[in-house]
């Protein structure tokens, strides 16, 4: 079941000048939400924004009926969204997409930049299911690190920064945690990073789940705009994905 409903903004936290976290209150009881699912936001107040904007669910507070979204400002819609005030309403279609398949006993989560958004809620779900997880976050510098405390409380956090201001200096792929044994990898971030991690997983012969951010018009399966080439033909990223087993994707 998907819903099209208004949420109320209860927090708009600035992380960096281009990164912010929205906490949204649902007036009813939240339906079940899987880690890796996303919402489609109706962005109002900007003449040049016509379609909704897809944003992953960063975290879910099932007791408070709140969800949070981690958003990077890349254009007019996300910029408009960053100005939203506490108390404003935001209309969402949710929850959308397949969400992560939960497998194994010990798994690795790898996130790059704001692409890491869905991993926090994934870490939470994994902990609930008593699956051990390590999480490796790659980002520009220590200022771009978000939700650190939350990650630490749910998982073993490892960090790689471009400038070495926190954790390893360098790319996630060169972090030593990569060499340990896992039953699966969950990776969200820039495509080159996801490809590198998926190659690594292939070598290790373990499944690698990636999250695709294809351009979407509807987000719920009806427009066929968001397709990705898989080994069994074009699939809609918004319903068959956004989480794919990287070995199913033609391009990976």
């Amino acid at each position, binding site marked *: 079941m998907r*819903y099209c409903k208004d949420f109320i903004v209860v927090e708009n936290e600035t992380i960096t000048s281009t990164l912010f976290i929205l906490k949204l209150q649902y007036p009813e009881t939240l339906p079940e939400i899987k880690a890796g699912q996303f919402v489609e936001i109706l962005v109002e107040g900007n003449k040049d*924004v016509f*379609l909704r904007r897809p944003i992953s669910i960063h975290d879910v507070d099932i007791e408070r009926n709140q969800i949070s979204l981690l958003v990077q400002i890349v254009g007019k819609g996300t910029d408009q969204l960053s100005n939203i005030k506490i108390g404003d309403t935001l209309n969402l279609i949710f929850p959308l997409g397949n969400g992560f398949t939960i497998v194994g006993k010990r798994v690795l989560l790898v996130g790059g930049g704001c692409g890491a958004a869905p991993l926090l809620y994934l870490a939470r779900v994994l902990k609930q299911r008593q699956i051990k997880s390590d999480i490796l976050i790659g980002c520009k510098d220590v200022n771009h690190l978000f939700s650190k405390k939350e990650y630490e409380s749910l998982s073993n956090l490892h960090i790689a920064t471009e400038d070495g201001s926190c954790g390893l200096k360098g790319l996630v792929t060169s972090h030593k945690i990569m060499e340990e044994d896992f039953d699966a990898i969950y990776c969200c971030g820039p495509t080159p990073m996801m490809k590198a991690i998926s190659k690594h997983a292939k070598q290790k012969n373990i499944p690698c789940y990636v999250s695709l951010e294809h*351009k979407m018009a509807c987000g719920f399966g009806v427009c*066929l*705009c968001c397709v990705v*080439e898989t080994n069994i033909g*074009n699939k809609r990223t918004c319903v068959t994905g956004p989480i794919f087993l990287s070995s199913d994707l033609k391009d990976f």
Partner: protein
Amino acid sequence: MNNIDKRLEVTIKDMVLRNPVMTASGTFGYGYDYEDFMNLESLGGIVVKATTGANREGNAYPRMAETSSGMLNAVGLQNKGVDYFCNTLYNKIKDINTNMIVNVSGSSIEEYVEVAEKINELKNIPGIELNISCPNVKQGGMAFGTDPKMAAEVVKAVRRAYNKTLIVKLSPNVTSIVEIAKAVEGEGADSLSLINTLFGMAVDAEKRQPLLSTVTGGLSGPAVKPVALRCVWQVAKQTKLPLIGIGGIMNATDAIEFILVGATAIEVGTANFINPAISQEIVYGISEYLDRHNIKNISDIRGII
């Protein structure tokens, strides 16, 4: 569905629509995708995604670009083909209690005829919408829809093969839409739906490349409404067929505008992406409009402009 507003009922050939609000092909999946958001039976009809003879993978990604008050798409008739439709999809939609229309596409007259013949056998499909106007495939549609002779030929052939309600969907990308409309009327079309998307393109200035894999695509959304209204108005003045108005309808007021210029019914397209319950809301909005203006029947305002 107890509160049916009888003032809204309209007829297109043998098809009775409980209200003029339909949904446009390619924007409403196979109907059931919207069940979470609304009551499908509140609609006058649902036009499902284009169906072709064989399976089609459609165009490469990216297939979509946002534009000012609109969007471009280059889906390219992706579908699993008419046999899959008849054997699998039909069973999933046949009990939806509204007029389920199939949008029929093809690259040749033979393909159109093949699809129409097979759909003709399906009891719960009261009509087809012949898509001779898709700008998104090379050999598919728009060539038929922009040449009156070819349009006439394909309609003639399909008419012979199909005996339920035959709607023909027109392209706005022509010098004279009236000429095409008349050609198609002459070959026995029961109704015309218009417009399909405008032929357009979009560019990413920073990356210096087109935003669609196919470079060009089909423009839809409120940006095209003025063109759509003009097309319906022109065709309403010069043909006798019941018309289905399409293009940029975002709310009940827009729907009323199409009825005022001569549409018997309307189809909601891109708006479904922005508000998935909008088509049902439009039904209520039309009732309210009739209340407010004290209009006894929707037909009283049809084509009065």
